[in-house]
């Protein structure tokens, strides 16, 4: 390359505009002011109390409810027993808890997702709560059976619940009545919800509004909308994906295959492309869900499968559907009958494919666990027990618009709940046909594999039997590998 020798070098400065100087200086001053006088990250911890760390997953609007509960505790029981709860919330709670536990400094209470419960328990990372629960008078008679069972694994209690849910069906009563004649013409009752999968399909067909070119303007029902619980469909088909006794996956069980076949039947009937276009695609749900464009709120879908929080959503994003001009007009003290007459929707159990059964449901829940290695186990449980006190629990569940995991519910809770149909969700929680998340140590992988299978099945990329068989082989191998490593470790 040519050699260049630069001796005298002149640097010419471009004339700097005064505007830029002013902006730069003001930014600098603002920054300095903020640094010097801004709000500090200091903490004023009460000196005479044991401080316990509580890490939760809720952010945004849901955080307000749990913050209230934490503040209540710190003011009352916490003051009495010299405990202070330091609360941190972040959406990736799992990651944070994992890192901290790996380094030996776990939080005292963590709010894990239910599908991580058995995973953590099987890796010996959670404190068993049996004795603590008994000491606080919490036992089998406190909780609904499905939740009590869900919190146990391998004979021990590993968590209690912060808020639970049951999944049911919301349907648009206004559209039902508008189509009363057409429904009656095929022998269906417009004044109630479908009570079986076949009835659901029949209602859906009548309520569909499809143009001659296949373009969908309205769908009676669409499994993918919102499709949050598609991989749990087998729970409404009387099937099971896991046999605990033989420790084998049963994805190829005919009942499970039927569940996925049913999901696929909608893609076949409506046409995959028409369906995608109607939904705004798989990702449409992510943006549409939390908006007035939610298909249920725009009456584009007449029936949906959702949890009790949907009532909150309807109120906030489409108060007209509740017969109100704005969310502020909501009056929880209004008599229940009146509220139900005013709104244009209702909730009912999601129908099942098992003849004679109409109270099947999936019952997810949010956990409160004590990681092993935390410093203040007794104090941590004091807080957990507080959350599970009936009045505290009801206040929290109402804030989140969810049902309560406790067997005892006050009349006030049922009659002045944010969800006027909360009794439907409560009854489902008490049902013997309610199921919580399958208790498999590798549940996160199971969930991902099932989701992948469900997507390819719904997109008509694969047949249910094949997709499920493939997933089963993979999952079985992973489970066996996991158990083998566990045994090797415990020797």
């Amino acid at each position, binding site marked *: 390359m040519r050699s260049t020798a630069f001796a005298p070098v002149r640097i010419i400065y471009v004339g700097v505009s005064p505007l830029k100087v002013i902006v730069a200086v003001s930014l600098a001053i603002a920054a300095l002011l903020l640094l010097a006088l801004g709000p500090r990250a200091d903490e004023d911890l009460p000196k005479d109390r044991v401080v316990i760390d509580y890490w939760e997953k809720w952010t945004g609007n849901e955080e307000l409810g749990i913050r209230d509960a934490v503040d209540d505790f710190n003011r009352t029981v916490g003051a009495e027993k010299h405990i202070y709860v330091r609360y941190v919330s972040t959406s990736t709670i799992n*990651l944070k808890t*994992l890192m901290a536990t790996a380094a030996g400094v776990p939080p005292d209470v963590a709010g894990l997702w239910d599908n991580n419960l058995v995973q953590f328990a099987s890796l010996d*990372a959670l404190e068993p709560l049996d004795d603590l629960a008994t000491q606080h008078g919490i036992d089998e008679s406190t909780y609904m059976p499905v939740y009590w069972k869900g919190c146990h694994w391998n004979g021990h209690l590993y968590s209690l619940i912060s808020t639970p849910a049951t999944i049911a069906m919301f349907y648009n009563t206004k559209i039902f009545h508008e189509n009363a004649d057409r429904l009656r013409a095929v022998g269906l009752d417009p004044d109630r919800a479908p009570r079986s999968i076949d009835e659901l399909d029949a209602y859906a067909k009548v309520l569909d509004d499809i143009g001659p070119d296949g373009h969908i303007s309205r769908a009676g029902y669409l499994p993918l909308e919102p499709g949050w619980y598609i991989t749990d469909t087998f729970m409404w088909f009387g099937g099971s994906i896991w046999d605990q006794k033989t420790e084998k996956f049963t994805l190829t069980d005919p009942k499970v295959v039927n569940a996925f076949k049913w999901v696929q039947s909608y893609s076949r009937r409506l046409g995959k492309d028409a369906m*995608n276009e*109607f939904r705004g695609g798989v990702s449409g749900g992510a*943006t549409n869900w939390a908006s007035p464009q939610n298909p249920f709120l725009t009456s584009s879908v007449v029936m949906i499968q959702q949890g009790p929080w949907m009532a909150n959503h309807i109120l906030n994003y489409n108060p007209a559907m509740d017969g109100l001009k704005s969310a502020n007009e909501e009056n929880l003290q209004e008599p229940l009958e009146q509220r139900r007459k005013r709104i244009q929707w209702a909730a009912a159990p999601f129908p099942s494919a098992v003849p004679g059964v109409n109270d099947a449901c999936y019952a997810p829940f949010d956990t409160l666990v004590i990681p092993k290695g935390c410093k203040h186990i007794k104090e941590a449980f004091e807080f957990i027990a507080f959350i599970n006190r009936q009045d505290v629990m009801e206040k929290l569940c109402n804030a989140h618009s969810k049902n309560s995991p406790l067997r005892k519910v006050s009349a006030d809770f049922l009659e002045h709940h944010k969800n006027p149909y909360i009794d439907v969700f409560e009854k489902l929680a008490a049902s013997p046909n309610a199921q919580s998340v399958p208790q498999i140590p590798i549940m996160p992988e199971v969930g991902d594999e099932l989701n992948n299978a469900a997507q390819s099945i719904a997109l008509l990329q694969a047949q249910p039997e094949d997709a499920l068989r493939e997933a089963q082989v993979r999952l079985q191998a992973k489970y066996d590998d996991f158990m083998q490593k566990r045994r090797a470790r415990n020797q």
Partner: protein
Amino acid sequence: MTKLERRNLFKGLAFLSPWLIGFAVFTLLPIILSFYFSLCDYSLLQTPVYRGAENYRTLATDPVFWQSMRVTAKFALLALPSGMILALILALLLNVKIRGQSIYRTIIFLPSLVPAVALAMIWLWLYNPKLGLINLGLRHLGVSSPPGWLSDPVWSLPALVLMSLWGVGNTVIIYLAGLQDVPADLYEAASLDGAGTLAKIWHVTIPSISPVIFFNLIIAIIGTVQQFTLPFIMTPSGQPARATYFYTMYLYDNAFSYLKMGQGSAMAWIQLLIILALTGIAFWTSKRWVYYQGK
């Protein structure tokens, strides 16, 4: 070693000393540990147990592992060349002395500042096949059935490539800084020889900034192979049906969702070897086309 060599070694190490210390503690140690983890069964919640090359063997027969490699390779082949070329063209355009230069530069730099959370929402909305602006625009232009973008197994990856091109501002800035250092008298000499604009670019500009091009190439290779944030926020779990399941996403899932840190670490080391191989090739060819003016 001669006296000069010894003195230079001492001087060199002295200048490198901050890095050497920090490197040992904050980088080397974790990396060595991560290699050890790749040879273990480690769930983060229990202590690691040595198991030899088992993780690597499991990965070799894992179809999801290979799927994630395919997805990443496809993305890299699309995003790398288009990103580098677009960035260079933009930098050259932004270097032309015209009014409003600062405004143009700021607009192009803007996308890299948008927080990931907002980015996800904006682009999910833009890509919405029914309601989004992109398909709205396509329909206006006469395209009767525009693609389903993020929900279409065929179009989801190109959708992500487009998004990555939107964020090309970072690379442009580095090119711009490099373009300032091109000696003006070289341009004058070329003009005197009768060279037009394109000829000047090819014979003066590009060779002069070749070290910068080289830098951006290495960074881009590392960036595309390690691509994680974009698909993580746009198409979680690699939907639809793992069509956008990037390598680093599977790594992350293995390590933190499935609690198989051993496998995750093994994947990281395989990734390291691949990147090393690619940059090795880049380095080897660099002797041919990279000119350091200082020499």
